């Protein structure tokens, strides 16, 4: 490496830390200088980040394309709403239960579904959404059918005699930030563990993975359940923010949004999913794009991903990042 390059490298690495600090500052103090509507857009993006992280574990790490993520998101939303309506449980109970219920449901669904390969698996996961839709519409005594559940309580925390509710958008921003932060941390720990390496092995070559002793089926099932837990937590966060949930949650709209975040952001990375949720959710929410126009844009993006950018749109930020002297993630 020449002297000049070396100087440039150090100079650029010098920019990396300030960039991180600046970003962290922006994130932490956003409510102070950002309008409440923009804040709302960011909250929605952070909520969608959760099921997207789950899907990234499936598609990006283990190589399983699933459309069921919207279904588990909906299950989490309903579970959380029903708990807080009927038992008036605090938020942390709701969010944990929503994750666990989604995960528990994913287990019996995953066992037969994961025996299928390729397109059959995709069709089967699509079936889970449709079944979710049918149940939420027809189990009227529980879900109130097409009317859905409304006035779901805003999240509240209770510790002994001390309790408070999260009502304002700014407060919800911090709540969502905390949950999303924890989810990113959990995701990071999973993919950096030896198990994460085994998942990549399954994605790269399933037969070889078997041949070096990896019980591929067990891992796929674990990942399917984990992805459902992520989605369930996201659903819980979603329902307490909007305070309503209806069978519309099981429409293709949600699954497609989650799919486009992961594929468009760039599969197999954390930064890609964060970038994807900002680009596809926060931005379109912020610009108040009508849902049908948004869906058309997603459709065009899917075609672009298939035919032009198989790695998603994240390599763009990756380039900026390495220009600042960082290592490729």
């Amino acid at each position, binding site marked *: 490496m020449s002297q000049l390059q070396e100087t440039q490298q150090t100079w650029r690495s010098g920019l990396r830390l300030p960039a991180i600090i600046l970003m962290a500052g922006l994130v932490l103090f956003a409510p102070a200088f950002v309008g409440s509507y923009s804040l709302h857009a960011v909250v929605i993006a952070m909520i969608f980040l959760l099921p997207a992280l789950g899907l990234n574990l499936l598609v990006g790490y283990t190589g399983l394309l699933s459309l069921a993520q919207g279904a588990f998101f909906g299950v989490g939303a309903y579970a959380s709403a029903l708990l807080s309506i009927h038992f008036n449980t605090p938020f942390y109970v709701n969010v944990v239960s929503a994750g666990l219920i989604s995960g528990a449901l994913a287990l019996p669904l995953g066992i037969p579904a994961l025996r299928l390969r390729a397109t059959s698996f995709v069709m089967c996961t699509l079936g889970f959404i449709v079944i979710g839709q049918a149940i939420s519409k027809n189990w009227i005594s529980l879900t109130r059918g097409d009317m859905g559940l409304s006035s779901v309580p805003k999240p509240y925390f209770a510790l002994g005699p001390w309790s408070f509710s999260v009502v304002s958008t700014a407060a919800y921003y911090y709540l969502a930030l905390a949950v999303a932060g924890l989810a990113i941390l959990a995701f990071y*720990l*999973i993919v*950096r*563990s*030896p*198990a994460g*390496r*085994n998942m*990549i*092995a399954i994605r*790269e*070559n399933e*037969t*070889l*993975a*078997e*041949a*070096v*002793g*990896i*019980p*591929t089926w*067990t*891992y796929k099932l*674990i990942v399917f359940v984990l992805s459902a837990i992520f989605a369930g937590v996201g659903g819980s966060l979603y329902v307490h923010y909007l305070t309503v949930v209806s069978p519309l949650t099981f429409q293709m709209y949600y699954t497609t949004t989650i799919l486009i975040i992961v594929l468009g952001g760039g599969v197999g990375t954390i930064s890609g999913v964060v970038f994807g949720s900002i680009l596809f959710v926060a931005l379109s929410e912020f610009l108040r794009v009508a849902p049908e126009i948004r869906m058309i844009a997603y459709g065009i993006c899917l075609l672009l991903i298939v035919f032009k950018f198989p790695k998603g749109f994240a390599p763009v930020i990756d380039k900026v990042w390495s220009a600042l002297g960082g290592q490729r993630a």
Partner: protein
Amino acid sequence: MTMPAILKIEQISKSYGAVKAVSDVSLELQRGEILGLIGPNGSGKSTFFDCVTGLGTPDHGRVQLDGTDITGWPLNRIAREGRMLRSFQKTVVFSALDVEENLVIAGQMFAFDSTRATFGIGTETAAIVEELRIRARELIKLTGLWDVRHMPAGKLSGGQQKLIQFASMLMPKPKVILLDEPMAGINPKLIEQVVEAIRYANTQLGISFLIIEHNIDVVTSLCQRVIVLDQGQMLAQGTPQEIVINPLVREAYLGG
């Protein structure tokens, strides 16, 4: 006193519809032995391998590995619990990952005592992975892949990928390795390197080998004993020298 065979295969049969791919093949692999398995194309060698290693299930027959009946175990369990590893005819590596990472993955399921344990991230886990990495580097040196250890495995030549695959199989300190045409499609210079690696693993690490191979020179130089399959049945067995002059074998190869 004779030690019992490490791998004992009794009367394996496998049919696809009306076609009998393998019928009643039995063999014993002794401890420390390198046994060759040869036969014309379509003689059922690969099907036999698949049945023994759990990639396919045999219609009949039993497989015993070091005294344990492993018939019907899936591939991953035979590898993990039985420590019997296999290679594939078509070379396979984890293409997007570098050589070192390929080897670390190959060792993981043997270094951690359960699937659950692989989800750990603590210092204990880190220490185990570090040990795997050290072992991987040793094997990389041994197989002469040091200079390309940080290259994505998919970018390397066919011969180098064979070596990666072979090194991967040594990661878990196996008892038995089954090689499916280790020399197919690699350049003659590398053949000697692979032969040396096999011989080293056999003599220094005490691993027994069952090898399918077409290259008769390799078979003669490596194997103590050779078994010939033809049309799914065992045709002959003996030392390489006996096999080469056996008229039945010559007929199977030339007349088939």
